[in-house]
């Protein structure tokens, strides 16, 4: 019954719409509004519920092309996950350590991870890029990026 990918996905969406509906019934009613804030969420929740059921019933066989999209080796997936981890670290450290240092570290680490080997070119590009972005945000756009532990 759950043999096809589309059916599995439809179950997830079904559960999600139940979850969404649950919360739309908890929206506090406003004493003044005739057409209140919960009307759209409830409508959308039921609409998604119906669509997930339709997706389940339709049970369309995926084309080869669609299946091929998921044909990614374990190694590549772990690479993508590592990049996600790097991004998480970047976000976590951005305000504490500062834009310039964290950005240069992130750029270098990611490019190394992806297999770029020309250290000199890499460092020239990344340091210039980071400094240009930092100073153009601060000076031209008037938005200050976190300076962190650096004095400027």
């Amino acid at each position, binding site marked *: 019954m759950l043999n096809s990918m*589309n059916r599995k*996905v439809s179950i997830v*969406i079904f559960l999600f719409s139940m979850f*969404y509906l649950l*919360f*739309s019934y908890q*929206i*506090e009613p*406003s004493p*003044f*509004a*005739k*057409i*209140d*804030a919960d*009307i*759209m*969420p409830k409508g*959308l*929740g039921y*609409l*998604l519920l119906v*669509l997930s059921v*339709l*997706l389940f019933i*339709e049970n*369309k066989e995926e084309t080869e092309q*669609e299946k091929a*999209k*998921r044909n*990614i080796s374990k190694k*590549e997936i772990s*690479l*993508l996950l590592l*990049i*996600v981890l790097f*991004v*998480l670290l*970047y*976000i976590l450290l*951005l305000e504490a350590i500062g*834009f310039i240092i964290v*950005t240069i570290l*992130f*750029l270098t680490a*990611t*490019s190394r991870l*992806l*297999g*770029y080997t020309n250290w000199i*070119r*890499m460092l020239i*590009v*990344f340091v210039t*890029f980071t400094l240009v*972005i930092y100073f153009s*945000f601060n000076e031209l*756009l008037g*938005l200050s*990026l976190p300076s962190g532990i650096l004095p400027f």
Partner: protein
Amino acid sequence: MEVIENILNGFAVALSLKNMLFVFIGVLSGTVIGMLPGLGPISAIAIMIPLSYGMEPASALILMAGVYYGAIFGGSTSSILLNAPGVSGTVATSFDGYPLAKQGKAGKALAIAAISSFGGGTISVFALMLVAPMMASFATQFGPTEYFALMFLGLSAISSLSEGSTIKALISAVIGLMIATVGRDLLTGTARFTFGSVNLLDGIDFLVIALGLFALAEVTNLVLTRNKENNSGSEVGSLRVTKQEAKEISGPIARHSVLGFIIGVLPGAGATIASFLSYITEKRISKNPETFGKGNIKGLAAPEASNNAATSGAFVPLLTLGIPGSGTTAVLLGALLVAGVTPGPLLMQDEPNVFWGVIASMYFGNIFLLILNLPLIPLIAKILYIPKRLLISLVIVFCLIGVYGISFNTFDLYLLLGFGVLGYVMRLLSFPAAPLILAFILGGMMETSFRQALIISKGDYLTFVQSPISAILIGVSILSLVLPMIRKRLSKNKQEV
């Protein structure tokens, strides 16, 4: 004549040194990003938005519009040289463009593409000048009921026209609308789906979604293809187009500029559909259709004129109704709102400088693109050979900083990453992302007009079919969803018989 005066004013705005510079920056970066296979026009615009922070509205709009049509222009280069379209609007370009490049006529193909794009772009901007004022004056009679119906049509059109399952596209759209309900309700101020978090009270910023669902998710394409550097680049060769050839492509350019423009105006369609339709039409009316796909220059000129014309066409609903018809123009609308412009029927009256300034700037943008793409093309094509391994991390940082620059809050960065993952998973499962972003951008407006319409009608839902305009729009929307399904059923039955 007030209109003529305003148009001249618009040219004056566009011709100022500062705005000329922004047109140039816009089209150049659009061309460059559009050229990179994997990053589409939505990513191009989203990545460039941070640059427009704090700009005057007219300049911001001029810049972002330049990025948009520049991306479509640039996409053709990689279609021709690598057979790897940079944007989906230029897939049809590769049908005859790549065979020409393989025959050693890459230069000629690029030149024809540039000339056709220029023709399509310029003719359609002229059409935009004619049609937009008419549309704007028509739209002034629209109330909330009609607006709701119009947005409803936009969403059902994009869902029924997107590739693959219509149900999946509709699910994407509904999820987009749901994300739009997060935050404080616009009419009553009630907090919805904030889970007690202060960070969610103002809702989720569109840039978080645009950069996450598109730019970050598309970066994974670059990651997965990083070992395949674009080194195969053939010599560009001579750019010369003979008189005979110029004569041959003038017909298709004129025809498909008009066709592309009309398709661009329609909701849900856009550069991709326009270019395919033009290619098929040109092949059908051709005396020797068998030469198509083997390097026929008409087969190259038709989609190129058409996709550029469609981008101008898409500005009609965007500027005059304030309602985008596609994912790309939805992001463009978000960019406008960031800059403090609210497009709609009143934009032309209230801010003629912005309205006509951006339209006038498109003429110059097209001229710049012609210059960039003809003599400088061998130089620009080198961008295709930038190592992807370097590029990936730069694009990621650009996304992160773009989001950080609007909120200075790391919470939004986590959300961005979350949407990046969602965007990637959606691609894996063949859920189109364009309906989601369009629905998200329309969501707030749609809910407001829906409830306003019901307040006016005292809760009577029939109001949506009692207004003739709204009834027609809703009727067309339902047909657009139901007809393809019926047709599929019928063709299935036929096969069984």
